[in-house]
């Protein structure tokens, strides 16, 4: 039971990192990113391929050749590199354009990456997924033991805390001020002489790095990953967390992550499943989250913990009222 609770807290922590990254992109800078699942996937697969040992198995006649058996910090750093680079590549054509285009490109990119994970069996073992991903210090503590779970929980919480501090410092720094200015009005910001595309790219890449690290942690936690774990549903869940929690506010992002991923998604696992309908409970759960997202957008568009808005003159400006 204890390890079960630790497991839930670890998963929620990892998803909170994702929500934090999304907050940096959308909450700070107004970048509409619907590819969370894709960055998560690339981080997870990079770490998994580097950390897991090479397997000799043949799947559908294709030999799985990847798997390098390296140590976990290398996997973590490599996923930072790949997810950051992916964000950079996607940013080149889209960040110059209206925000909508970024949304479309990222949503498609996430889906394409999932297809790559399904089809490139030599690298990813297809739908079978990569198994036996080594956890940190596995030679001392075997994977399924309580100490190993605790180590991973501590590692995840440390990284979350570190990322939270970085994100919060960033928010109040001059850099963060420019990001918020871009969110409010891109044209005015560029008239003030700020290189808007440059700032957007930095934020986008930083968000990608956050998501990649979350993916690597996730791969280490579950020790076996498969493409089905990276369906667009997760992108949507992260958006629900951010909007419900309060975009622009890091505490809101964490609150939303804990509420929706912890209570709504993990908490409802204890509900008895209906026999013969294994899809029913998850589907109903996501319907509820979707309705919650729309209701919050309509009734409390700034979320449970709204961003503090600095009042200018008499009127308080709506933070997300754009164009």
């Amino acid at each position, binding site marked *: 039971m204890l390890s079960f609770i630790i497991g839930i807290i670890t998963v929620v922590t990892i998803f909170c990192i994702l929500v934090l990254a999304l907050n940096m992109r959308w909450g700070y800078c*107004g970048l*509409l990113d*619907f590819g969370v699942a894709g960055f998560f996937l690339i981080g997870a697969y990079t770490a998994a391929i580097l950390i897991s040992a090479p397997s000799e198995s043949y799947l559908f006649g294709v030999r799985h050749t990847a798997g390098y058996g390296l140590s976990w910090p290398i996997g973590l750093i490599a996923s930072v590199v790949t997810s950051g680079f992916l964000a950079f590549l996607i940013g*080149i*054509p*889209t960040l*110059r*354009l*209206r*925000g*909508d*285009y970024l*949304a*479309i*490109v990222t*949503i*498609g*990119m996430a*889906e*394409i990456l999932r*297809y*790559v994970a*399904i*089809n490139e069996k030599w690298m990813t073992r297809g739908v079978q997924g990569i198994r036996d991903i080594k956890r940190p210090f596995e030679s001392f503590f075997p994977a399924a033991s309580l100490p190993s779970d605790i180590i991973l929980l501590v590692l995840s919480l440390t990284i979350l805390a570190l990322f939270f501090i970085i994100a919060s410092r960033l928010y109040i720094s001059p850099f963060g001020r420019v990001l918020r200015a871009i969110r409010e009005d891109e044209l005015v910001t560029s008239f003030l002489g700020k290189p808007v595309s440059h700032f957007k790219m930095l934020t986008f890449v930083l968000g990608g790095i956050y998501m990649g690290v979350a993916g690597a942690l996730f791969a280490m936690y579950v020790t076996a990953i498969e493409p089905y774990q990276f369906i*667009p*549903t997760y992108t*949507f869940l992260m*958006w*629900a967390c951010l*909007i419900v929690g309060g975009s622009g506010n890091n505490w809101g992002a964490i609150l939303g992550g804990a509420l929706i991923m912890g209570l709504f998604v993990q908490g409802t696992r204890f509900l008895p499943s209906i026999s013969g*309908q294994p*899809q*029913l409970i*998850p*589907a*109903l759960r*996501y*319907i509820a*989250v*979707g*309705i919650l*997202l*729309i209701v919050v*957008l*309509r009734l409390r*568009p700034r979320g449970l913990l709204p961003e503090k808005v600095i009042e200018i003159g008499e009127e308080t400006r*709506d933070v*997300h*009222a*754009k*164009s």
Partner: protein
Amino acid sequence: MIYLGFGIIAGAVLALPSVALSLLCRNCKFFNLAYGDQMGLTAYLVLFFNVSLGLNFPASVVLSLIISAILGVIFYWIIFKPLRRHGPLVLLIASLGLAFVIHNSELAIWGPNPQKYNIPFETGLRLGPFIMTPIQLVLIGLSFALTGGIFAMLRYTGIGRAMRATADNLELATIRGVDTERVFIWTWIICSATAGLGGVFLALITTLTPWTGFITLLFLFSALILGGVGNLVGALVGAMIIGLVSECAAILSVLAPYKIAVAFAIMFICLLFRPSGILGKERGF
């Protein structure tokens, strides 16, 4: 040559919904991510009437399209109209939420397995180099006829003119006495019904799963952006190009599982070199 035939079918089937989606984007000024799932939902409604209730196929299509249109207006009233003041990006997020509600409703009601309609199996006809079933020929014909219908509606009817005026400049249209609320409602009715029909076409040429709508949405958006967002002719041309190229790419067996990736690669190149699309104006939509 077989691939070319597939490409023509795919292009024709994509053409109708992509023109309607382009119209919706142009009039309502945002990308509707729930569009693909609206297509899927209507296809499932047809399944419900056709297979579960045993109605004949045309009757169930008509019933489903009416429901689809009504649902479209309801979505507009309860979600998109109240959120309009927050701008296009918030509308996009709301449409993502709606897309997942619809997708998971399909999953909850009909389950994840592929479904098929209760229609007689047809053998292919040989037409020159192509092999097509009669139903596919009907689909191609209907798709182009209805696309032409949308263009004619925009050009020759009062509501079509009002739509163009509203899309061009909402404030000006309002000042000149165009009933913009009526325009929006008709846009949602027409586009939702067309989406539904597109979904049914798609379910006829492929199989129907809860993911069909979402996957199609990606093709539709690459067609839309390739053609130039808000340009209806562009959407038509874009849909044909995307349909043809993504199907013909399957000639190379490496690319066979990556139809979406091919469609997106075309869109990506287009965004790099001509972000406004091949027929779009600089201004966008």
